[in-house]
């Protein structure tokens, strides 16, 4: 038999310092007396013998100190060992308990795992996206520069504006302009589109990156007309060159021109995100216009210069520039934004919202487990009362409960991490491009630490709740009560009831949030875009830059497009094939100012004409702003954009014929209210560089572009056969009858025309779905959280009502014995559940009323206090609570009174 450590210690060791010292003194006195006797027997005198014995003994003080310190250390070790042993004992006990009720252990750990998993997954996204600094040296110095127009909107930079900023500001160590685009990389006949960025000379210096391999650009490569040198991304290096160092100096074919690879960038440092190829901006001519806002600009603020000072510097510079140029520039002012804020600014509130939602879920999970623990405490009240009676300290009891809770939390934490891992994988496959920096995400140490921390917090809270409930046990009351009932008293029900109410209230908040997002999403998805969205396939053919500059190239491009359209039209199931220079729903390929040329003599010499045009541009009545899109007549038929008046483009509108344009209803209404736009002559050279005037021949219906929630913008359509266009892509819009898959045969047919042109297929539905990706992402997550919360709350209601039924079994039996019907009993029990649900719903509704405000920016034409969402959720909650309490109620109504009364 094992003797408890405490007992061993009490019997073996003196319990205090004084006792140790006293024992030692006894021992020493005995020794010295024995020696004195012996010496006296050898002939020493009494005093001599005593003195000699003491001398022979040595330093008694030193010995005493030595022994006391050793004993004290010993006792500390014994205490620690005892504590460890008691924890181990509690662990064994807890494991035994959980083995005895595996259902409880499973539900409790799964519940905790759900809470911890959801919170950890969202936290790792928040941490990776928002909290971690950008992967560049001194990332806080990196900023995005913006111009500001007359209305206070951010503006990109025009070449001369950027040059002026680079010349006149003093706060930046490096400034660089860059523009994103695409290149077609061709290798052994197979073409691939990659994201490319044209970057000015100080770009890599501003980021303060070093190449993984090779070098960045040298001045000879940054000259007008120089052969293109490129720096490639780590990903492209791996996929194209198998991560071979011999990639440096190799030649690729990009947009049908040979380009030389000079360097490889390190993984994770791609900027702008997703770029695969960087090339010097200087090899192309600069645009001298102050209103060609084609460039984004990043800068690195000089060491020791505050961001605010840099902002003032930029602002003053641009204000001075505007003062000297006047109307020639639209850039009135400027500002800077930290690069990280620029990248993650939009997603930040979304992510914090999700973190909040997951935290609420964790709280609900905790409430559920606390509820379960208390239910078990009530069942174990007798055991605990007995343990208290035989002398178990309350602290010792609390320790045991804490160990139980910790064990649950530890398993829950591990389960939660696994769930988080799986959850993050799902999260990332959902819609990666709607979250920036998604490539940097992983379940890393901070996330792990976070999971452990919240699990530990959960364990402490649960342990405290349970021991507060358990260790306050009143022995007599409990033992006496156990004669009457099968569990604890009414206090326990009250606590559990309030926990369920809190749970229900939090569930209501989550569900109302999800409901509002769902309502908004449905509103968005049922918006009339003004064109057909189902069954329309878009093929994007990347001809590349420079295919529309010479007459010969234009002819070739037109011929190619013609051929492609003919092939597409011949495919089975295809009803119409249109062409544009931009995807549907993309907002057109360009936008800018047009001039109405009524009165201007378009046959005058170009120099004089320019003067006229400049004058007219300032005249609001004769100038306007519109988006611009190249389209064929069938573009409108394929997308079923209605013709409101006039005609669409037709066969007569060919190169050389008088140039024509279509406008949409929004432009017609804005520019010529109450007047027909047909026959008006427009000039659009400011946008596509072609000064040839166009005559408006038709008005088409409005379409929503880019964002479903945005109102239709004024738009001009020009004929694809008449304007060369400057888009590197041909977008073929293929309307189908919907029954035959068209992508694969179209791909084969297009390859036969030209194999070296990369083709990408998408559908209009997909394009629109992409535009609402972040809304869908939010809805999905909040919806899942709300669903899980509802499940947990249902479990909570069920368990607390079951408990009530068990507790009041005797009373119910008496009622039945006295003649109550089964329906009376059901009503009696269900009423309790519904009462909980009503209180929870009321509290939750108030909380939701106060908190759904945070969703405002995410909602489209749904109020944050939308009555339908509120009412729907509250009704749903009550129905679910009703169902959850009906099961135990039915059980109660079937109790056999005599069994209960005899058995009790």
């Amino acid at each position, binding site marked *: 038999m094992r003797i408890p450590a405490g007992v061993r210690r009490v019997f*073996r060791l003196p319990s205090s310092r004084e006792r140790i010292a006293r*024992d*030692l003194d*006894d*021992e*020493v006195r*005995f*020794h010295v*007396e*024995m*020696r004195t006797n*012996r010496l006296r027997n050898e002939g020493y005198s009494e005093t001599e013998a005593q003195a000699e014995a003491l001398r*022979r*003994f*040595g*330093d*008694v003080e*030193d*010995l005493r100190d*030595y*022994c006391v310190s*050793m*004993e004290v*250390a*010993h006792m500390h070790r014994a205490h620690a060992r005892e504590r460890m042993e008691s924890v181990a004992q509690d662990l064994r006990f807890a494991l035994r308990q959980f083995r005895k009720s595996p259902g409880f252990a499973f539900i409790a750990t799964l519940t905790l795992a759900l809470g911890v998993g959801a919170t950890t997954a969202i936290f790792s996204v928040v941490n990776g996206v928002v909290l971690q600094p950008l992967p560049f040296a001194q990332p806080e110095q990196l900023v995005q520069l913006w111009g500001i127009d007359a209305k206070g909107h951010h503006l990109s930079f025009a070449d001369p504006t950027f040059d002026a900023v680079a010349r006149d500001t003093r706060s930046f160590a490096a400034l660089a302009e860059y523009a994103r685009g695409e290149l077609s990389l061709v290798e052994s006949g197979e073409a691939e589109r990659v994201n490319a960025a044209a970057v000015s000379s100080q770009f890599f210096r501003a980021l303060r990156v070093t190449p993984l391999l090779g070098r960045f650009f040298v001045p000879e490569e940054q000259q007008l007309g120089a052969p293109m040198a490129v720096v490639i991304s780590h990903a492209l290096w791996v996929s194209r060159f198998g991560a071979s160092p011999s990639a440096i100096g190799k030649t690729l074919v990009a947009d049908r021109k040979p380009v030389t690879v000079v360097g490889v960038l390190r993984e994770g440092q791609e900027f702008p995100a997703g770029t695969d190829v960087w090339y010097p901006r200087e090899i192309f001519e600069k645009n001298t216009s102050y209103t060609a806002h084609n460039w984004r600009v990043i800068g690195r603020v000089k060491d020791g210069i505050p961001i605010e000072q840099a902002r003032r510097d930029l602002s003053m510079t641009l204000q001075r520039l505007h003062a000297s140029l006047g109307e020639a520039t639209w850039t009135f002012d400027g500002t800077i934004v930290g690069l990280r804020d620029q990248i993650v600014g939009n997603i930040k509130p979304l992510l914090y919202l999700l973190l909040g939602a997951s935290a609420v879920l964790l709280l609900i999970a905790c409430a559920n487990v606390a509820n379960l623990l208390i239910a078990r405490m009530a069942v174990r009240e007798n055991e605990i009362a007995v343990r208290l009676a035989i002398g178990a300290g309350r602290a010792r009891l609390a320790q045991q409960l804490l160990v139980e809770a910790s064990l649950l939390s530890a398993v829950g934490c591990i389960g939660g991490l696994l769930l988080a891992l799986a959850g993050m994988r799902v999260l990332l496959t959902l819609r990666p491009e709607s979250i920036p920096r998604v490539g940097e995400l992983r379940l890393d140490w901070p996330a792990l630490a976070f999971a452990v921390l919240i699990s530990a917090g959960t364990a402490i809270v649960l342990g405290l709740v349970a021991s507060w409930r358990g260790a306050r046990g009143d022995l007599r009351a409990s033992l006496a009560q156990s004669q009457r009932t099968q569990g604890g008293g009414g206090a326990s029900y009250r606590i559990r009831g309030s926990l369920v109410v809190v749970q229900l209230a939090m569930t209501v908040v989550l569900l109302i949030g999800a409901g509002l997002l769902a309502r908004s999403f449905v509103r968005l998805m049922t918006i009339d875009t003004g064109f057909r969205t189902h069954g329309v396939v878009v093929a994007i053919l990347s001809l590349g830059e420079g295919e529309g500059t010479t007459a010969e190239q234009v002819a070739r491009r037109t011929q190619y497009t013609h051929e492609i359209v003919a092939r597409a039209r011949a495919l089975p199931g295809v009803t119409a094939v249109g062409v544009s220079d931009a995807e549907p729903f993309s907002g057109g390929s360009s936008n800018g100012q047009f001039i109405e040329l009524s009165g201007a003599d378009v046959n005058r010499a170009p120099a004089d004409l320019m003067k006229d045009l400049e004058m007219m541009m300032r005249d609001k009545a004769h100038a306007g702003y519109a988006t611009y899109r190249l389209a064929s007549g069938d573009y409108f038929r394929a997308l079923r954009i209605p013709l409101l008046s006039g005609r669409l483009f037709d066969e007569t509108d060919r190169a050389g014929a008088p140039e024509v344009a279509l406008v949409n209803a929004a432009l017609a209404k804005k520019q010529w209210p109450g007047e027909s736009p047909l026959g008006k002559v427009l000039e659009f050279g400011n946008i596509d560089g072609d000064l040839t005037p166009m005559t408006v021949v038709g008005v088409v219906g409005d379409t929503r572009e880019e964002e479903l929630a945005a109102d239709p913008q004024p738009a001009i359509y020009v004929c694809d056969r008449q304007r060369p266009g400057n888009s590197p892509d041909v977008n073929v819009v293929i309307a189908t009858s919907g029954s035959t898959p068209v992508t694969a045969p179209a791909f084969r047919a297009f390859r036969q025309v030209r194999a070296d042109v990369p083709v990408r297929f998408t559908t209009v539905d997909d394009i629109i779905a992409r535009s609402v990706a972040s809304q869908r992402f939010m809805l999905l997550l909040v919806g899942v959280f709300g669903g899980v919360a509802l499940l947990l709350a249902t479990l909570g209601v069920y368990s607390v009502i079951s408990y009530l039924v068990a507790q009041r079994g005797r009373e119910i039996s008496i009622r039945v014995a006295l003649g109550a019907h089964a329906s009376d009993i059901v009503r009696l029990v269900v009423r309790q559940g519904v009462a909980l649900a009503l209180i929870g719903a009321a509290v939750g509704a108030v909380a939701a009323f106060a908190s759904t405000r945070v969703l405002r920016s995410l909602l489209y034409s749904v109020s944050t206090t939308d009555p339908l969402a509120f009412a729907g959720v509250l009704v749903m909650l009550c129905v679910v609570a009703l169902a959850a309490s009906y099961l135990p109620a039915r059980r109660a109504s079937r109790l056999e009174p005599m069994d209960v009364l005899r058995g009790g």
Partner: protein
Amino acid sequence: MPRDASDLLHGTLDVLVLKTLSWDAKHGYAIAEWIEKRGGGELVIVDAALYKALHRLEDAGSIESEWGVSENNRRAKYYSLTARGRAQLRAEAATWKRYAHAVHRILETA
């Protein structure tokens, strides 16, 4: 097995105490007398050091103690060997013998 001098002295006293207790339980004074007698008066031990060793060995679990009555009817603390102490004695005695033998051989041949 190489040992330094201070270690040797501690170890020596410990192993002698263990040896002393190998037959029966003894109180501190009896142990001191036994060692002096067996050592032929060559080994004179400071008593305080002996008691330090006793308490050290007890703390390590090699010996245990119990209050008893001495041959002259006095209250005295008796020490006896535990199983662990017995094992320790065997190991240390063997080591010590090897060590002494090695020192002896060096001194003889040099």
